[in-house]
């Protein structure tokens, strides 16, 4: 089996497995997995920039929030239906990421981290400042009745699950395909050795710009998806915490692997869900696990698997 066939098999197999899981899982886990898939979409977007391009952003919550507010406000105040609202969310996220990229990409390394962090902080404060429309920290609820596509209620657990899965599958396949094309390889080239890549004749700035916009737009799609599927929009999702989450998920799952983000989100979600059932000190357990992972599985879960057993993993 060639490298590309194995990769195609892996991704389609994963999606097929998720389709089957939708039918067999108990309601509770079905609901969890729907959330995990939406958040994993966010992580997939983050991974494009961090995992593949090597740019560490600490402000991705602003893109997630741009999609979320763009979509949510269009529905809540504009009375727009789901599909056009999602498109509006995507446009907001794409526009914001383009503007941020043009400014932030003038910096590198730690300065890039801080600049993205501060832009995100401004977006967060703006969401609070415009409380009259955004509901500030309290946020707002999107009416249950309006959350439907062509008569299919997104509030129905199974419909919601497949909607979340579609969102994730699209993001996964786009990025997986991208990473097989020259464009994706150039991003990896930028990550591995920016100067070398420039001296091979690639316009590094434009590639980075594209990476930020693609990454931000996928994050925005996840935000818009969260608003539509779970019916709540609030400033919490624009806070620093939600910028750090995707970093953690990706590092946990394995940066620069296509399926790492999903594994990372699922691992973290169930770790907290499970640990909180045993003790209130689940943060302690989460902290300890993070420390152990850094000590013994530096490449993340999927990354370690790739390093030890399956070097072909995309």
């Amino acid at each position, binding site marked *: 089996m060639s490298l590309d066939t194995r990769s195609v098999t892996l991704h389609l197999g994963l999606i097929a497995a998720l389709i089957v899981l939708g039918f067999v899982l108990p309601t509770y886990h079905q609901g969890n997995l729907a959330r995990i898939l939406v958040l994993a979409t966010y992580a997939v977007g983050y991974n494009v920039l961090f995992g593949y391009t090597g740019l560490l952003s600490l402000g991705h919550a602003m893109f997630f929030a741009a999609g979320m507010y763009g979509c949510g406000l269009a529905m809540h105040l504009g009375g727009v239906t789901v599909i056009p609202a999602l498109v509006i969310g995507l446009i907001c996220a794409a526009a914001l990421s383009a503007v941020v990229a043009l400014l932030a990409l003038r910096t590198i390394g730690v300065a890039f981290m801080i600049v993205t962090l501060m832009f995100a902080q401004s977006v967060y404060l703006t969401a609070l400042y415009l409380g009259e429309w955004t509901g500030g920290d309290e946020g707002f609820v999107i009416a249950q009745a309006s959350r439907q596509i062509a008569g299919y209620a997104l509030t129905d657990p199974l419909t919601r699950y497949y909607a979340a899965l579609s969102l994730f599958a699209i993001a996964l396949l786009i990025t997986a395909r991208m990473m097989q094309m*020259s464009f994706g390889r150039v991003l990896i080239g930028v990550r591995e*050795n920016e100067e070398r890549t420039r*001296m*091979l004749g690639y316009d590094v700035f434009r590639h980075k710009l594209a990476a930020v916009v693609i990454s931000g737009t996928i994050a925005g799609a996840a935000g818009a998806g969260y608003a539509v599927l779970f019916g709540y929009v609030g400033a919490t999702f624009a806070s620093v915490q939600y910028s750090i989450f995707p970093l953690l998920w990706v590092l946990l799952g394995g940066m620069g692997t296509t399926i790492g983000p999903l594994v990372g989100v699922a691992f973290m979600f169930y770790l907290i869900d499970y640990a909180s059932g045993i003790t209130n000190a689940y943060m302690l357990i989460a902290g300890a696990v993070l420390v152990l992972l850094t000590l013994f599985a530096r490449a993340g879960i999927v990354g370690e698997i790739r390093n030890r057993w399956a070097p072909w993993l995309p």
Partner: protein
Amino acid sequence: MMLLETKGLTRIYGGLRAVDTVDYTLAKGEIHALIGPNGAGKSTFVGMVSGRIPASEGEVWFDGENVTALPAHARIQRGMAYTFQITAIYARLSLFDNVALALGQRDKAKVRAALDRVGLANRMEQIAGDLAYGHQRLLEIAMGVAQTPRLLILDEPTQGLAESEIEEFNTLIRELAGDTTILLIEHNMSVVMALADEITVLETGKILARGTPAEIHANADVQNAYLGTG
């Protein structure tokens, strides 16, 4: 017909003129060696030619076009290629990926052909960082060659190569000659003498001498400044 021309090219580092008003021409199809003692400004000079280092003053013309204002990648796209003095391959990627990035396409046959020219074709799936140092240098050269440039800039390509590998390298460069113009920075004088059509000697940022290998060999200034030390 001149492929490359610099006019008054200058680079100033904190008051120090590392390259000082260099006027230089390079004819199409020629193999030209740039030599000089350490710190003479060779790498800075080719850095400005390729666009890695912005020029403080002066102009760079490539194939009849003023490229001074163009960024490096745009110059590369116009037909330059540059190999680094310190090996700059993608250490964590496979040889295939390295060469494919240089080629700009993921065509297996073409990648194999490019690697074949430096004798690394059978290592295509290996991770570049795992190669021996000499092989890494060869990969670097293969990446330059794979771009099928009109001007190939090689910054100390034979550094760290074994004798037998240097022989292969010489053969490779001779094969390229004619189609590709080559600008070579080299310390190894036997390589220079074997390959170069013409030699320019840089010292403290200025051109000290220019001529055929024989002329340079006979030049007393060069003897003093450079060869004498070695």
